[in-house]
């Protein structure tokens, strides 16, 4: 809990940093470094991640991939519920709790997404979004090595979500290894689901870095609003 409090404070301080003159309004003061990290990430993606994701998509049947996705999402549900509660979204927390109970029981531990079949749809929340709901600004754009687009608020949120995950506190045999496996599968599956889309965006953009930055910012803002339309503009 002390860690969480520290992270919140750090997020508020970093997110609240004033940015220097920025006529285009991109709030990217570390652009030169960010671009270097972006190129590094792309290199890692091309060399390791993308080929792995492609093989995964080719050789692992869709049914298996869907079951895996559903299990990973179910494992993540408590984090979503915690963030729903921290955002005072009681009904969304109820929906996710319902999904977790249904999919963990009738859905055989998450292997089958029965809840969606019942019309109880999933949603995602993370601590970066919770901080945003609490009024913390996103701060300057940051490209994190290996992790990709972010900002101080969302980077702090990523760490805090580990603290909110009950699995972190359950000490079972080879805990670290299994957490690694879970993270690895999450990354590969997510990449595989975005193969075509990302290829298309890269092919069609003139400046892939700037396009990815806008994509991340717009999509994050949309997630924070829980899909509701923006009230400005």
């Amino acid at each position, binding site marked *: 809990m002390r860690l969480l409090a520290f992270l919140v404070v750090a997020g508020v301080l970093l997110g609240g940093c004033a940015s220097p003159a920025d006529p*285009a309004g991109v709030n990217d003061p570390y652009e030169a470094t960010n671009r270097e990290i972006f190129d590094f990430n792309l290199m890692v993606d091309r060399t390791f991640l993308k080929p792995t994701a492609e093989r995964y998509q080719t050789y692992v049947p869709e049914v298996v991939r869907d079951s895996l996705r559903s299990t990973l999402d179910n494992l993540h549900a408590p984090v979503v519920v915690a963030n729903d509660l921290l955002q005072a979204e009681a009904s969304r927390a109820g929906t996710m709790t319902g999904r977790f109970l249904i999919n963990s029981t009738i859905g055989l531990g998450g292997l089958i997404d029965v809840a969606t079949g*019942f019309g109880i749809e999933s949603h995602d929340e993370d601590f970066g979004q919770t901080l945003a709901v609490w009024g913390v600004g996103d701060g300057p754009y940051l490209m994190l090595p290996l992790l990709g687009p972010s900002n101080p608020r969302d980077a702090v949120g990523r760490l805090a979500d580990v603290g909110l995950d009950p699995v972190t506190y359950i000490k079972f045999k080879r805990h670290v290894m299994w957490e690694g496996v879970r993270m690895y599968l999450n990354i590969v599956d997510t990449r595989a689901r975005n193969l075509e889309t990302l290829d298309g965006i890269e092919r069609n953009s003139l400046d892939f870095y*700037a396009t990815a930055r806008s*994509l991340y910012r*717009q999509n994050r803002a949309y997630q924070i609003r829980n899909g509701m*339309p923006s009230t400005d503009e």
Partner: protein
Amino acid sequence: MRGMTKPYKFILATFSFVAALVLSLGLSMGRAEAASPAEQFIADNVQKAMGILNNTASSKDQKKTEFQNFLLGLTDIQSIGRYTLGQYRRSASPEDLTAFDAAFKEYALSVYQSYFAKYSGQSLKVTGSNQLGANDIMVKTVTVDPKKSSAKPFEVNFRVQTVNGRTMVVDFSVEGVWIRELERNDFTSYLGQKNGDVKALIAMLKQKAAQQH
């Protein structure tokens, strides 16, 4: 026998709790409202687009031409293009702007065509709309995959305005990412590196459009 009762009871209790939860959540869903003109406009055009993309009688090239003509009649491509220039629109010469309009049209048609063609097996279902201004409506849709009902739907929204007496789409978004904004970030960043040279942008757009063929 007696030892069996306890876990059995527990499982039964869990299941009935879950079933009650399902029912209470399920009953609160569902919506029935008459579609507004803007919603109807999007629904009709989704039907039209599906008709073009799923027409088995036409060849791939025919489909492409037909779909691009359809997009041309549906979207206000020129206004989208001008928006994407951002602060460079004011400093561009009239000749460059005219050349840009043409290059952007070619780029946008081929790029949007390729985006939508990818989803030709799916459909969009209108879920509602929001009035953003007097002549500005956002129509909300979600993807429906008839082959895979469990597929996670994503939100595709259209911004509809009346331009010169015609109802047109001036922007669209996928999961909150609006194409106009995305392209403006892309183009202005590129122009920033080229000292605001619109001619360089035009050449690049032509190259990108040609790549799609």
